[in-house]
């Protein structure tokens, strides 16, 4: 092999090496990024699973407390009310004891009502028995009894069945929205519109307040320990739903909740 040939081979070798280095850099970096992306996806999936588990645990605990309150404390209060009723029949003296007893009975009634409201808020029994639409209707009736705001519920569509987990999450989202409207929106009227088609579930929550519902939700998101909008988004994210806020004319806010493929899986 002469000197010319050595130089040619060397040059060809270097050229190939140069190209190889460039190609290797491209593929190696691509592989690294793809690996990292796969890890990130896995991490996100794990976080989602954790969130679902936390929310499920929370719901189970709420259900247990609601049942305990309703079945035990509620029953005991009902017995107390009955006893008070019987006691009033045996009361003979007219020193104002009858009035005191009547007041106590009324107070017991108020406690029972409050207890029902708390129990219903913790776990809506109507959701398991009658479905989302009725549970929301019943929630509105309960809220109307206790608050100053007039809440109306309107439903259209032929009552398609909603998957239990999705229904519970949507119910909690509406609950969270209502809480925020009552706290921050200074509204006097709220309208909840429920509409379902076979593929899309739509719930609009309209208020005639100061239009600061979104701001308040956003603020609560930034606060440590406060869930607000983050809670709403997480719940909707889990069930593949979305929420959109818009200004309502003349005043207030409209929150539009949309959930696709909301019906329970068959089989």
């Amino acid at each position, binding site marked *: 092999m002469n000197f010319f040939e050595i130089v040619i081979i060397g040059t*060809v070798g270097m050229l190939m090496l140069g190209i190889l280095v460039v190609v290797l*850099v491209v593929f190696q970096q691509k592989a690294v990024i793809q690996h990292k992306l796969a890890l990130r996806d896995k991490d996100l999936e794990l976080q989602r699973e954790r969130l679902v588990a936390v929310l499920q645990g929370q719901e189970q605990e709420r259900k247990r407390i609601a049942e305990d309150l309703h079945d035990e404390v509620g029953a005991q209060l009902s017995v107390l009310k009955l006893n008070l009723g019987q006691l009033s029949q045996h009361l003979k003296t007219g020193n104002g004891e009858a009035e005191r007893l009547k007041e106590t009975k009324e107070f017991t009634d108020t406690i029972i009502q409050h207890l029902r409201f708390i129990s219903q808020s913790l776990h809506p029994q109507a959701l398991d028995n009658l479905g989302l639409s009725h549970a929301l209707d019943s929630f509105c009736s309960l809220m109307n009894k206790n608050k100053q705001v007039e809440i109306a519920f309107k439903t259209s569509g032929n009552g398609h069945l909603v998957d239990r987990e999705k229904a519970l999450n949507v119910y909690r989202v509406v609950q969270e929205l209502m809480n925020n409207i009552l706290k921050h929106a200074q509204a006097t009227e709220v309208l909840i519109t429920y509409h379902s088609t076979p593929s899309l579930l739509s719930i609009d929550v309209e208020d005639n307040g100061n239009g600061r519902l979104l701001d308040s939700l956003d603020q609560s998101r930034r606060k440590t320990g406060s869930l607000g909008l983050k809670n709403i988004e997480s719940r909707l994210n889990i069930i593949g739903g979305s929420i959109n806020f818009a200004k309502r004319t003349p005043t207030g806010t409209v929150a539009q909740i949309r959930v696709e493929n909301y019906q329970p899986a068959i089989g």
Partner: protein
Amino acid sequence: MTGIECILLIPFTLNFKKLDRPSRWACYYLISSVVFAVGSFAFAHLYRNNLWFYSIMYYIQFVILSIYYSLLIKNPLFRRLIKILPIPAAAIFLLDFFKLEGVLAYNSIFAAARTFILLCYGTVFFIQLLFDEELVKEAIFVNALPNFWFNAGLFIFFSCSFFDTLTYNFFLKHYKTHNNLVLSLVFLGGIIEGILFYIGLMKAKKQRP
């Protein structure tokens, strides 16, 4: 480079504002290559020897590319090294130019040293891209970066011209001619470099439409 880069100067000039700081130095390198090609041709016809011009242009291009790499490479130690190296390189250049091989000879020692140093810079930049956490975090592929393509072009060209620079003077002294096949390979490297520079420009245009 080999003179064909003058075609590239048109799109580079038209899109100069879209280039970032390091890419602009890659563009200056292209301009210097055109000056190199035109000057070599002119001096060859005027004085029958243009090898002194080769050596001067090699050094100028080395300084331009040193600035280019000092802007690209993030490691402070390498950055400082790149900024300092033109000084010892200047010493080698002057020594080779005036003493070792002479003004009218091809300065193989300096040319090979400069090519080797530039190959090292290119390698350092490739390694930096491979381990760049920011790119991985943002899921940016290296082939979307204009400077990756500019560096790839330079790397391939310097890879295949390394042996040529090392042996050029030897061939001229001992065989009174040059190996045409090696020159063709260097030309091929130059064409690849031009193509990769153009791809880099396209990526820069995409980044800043």
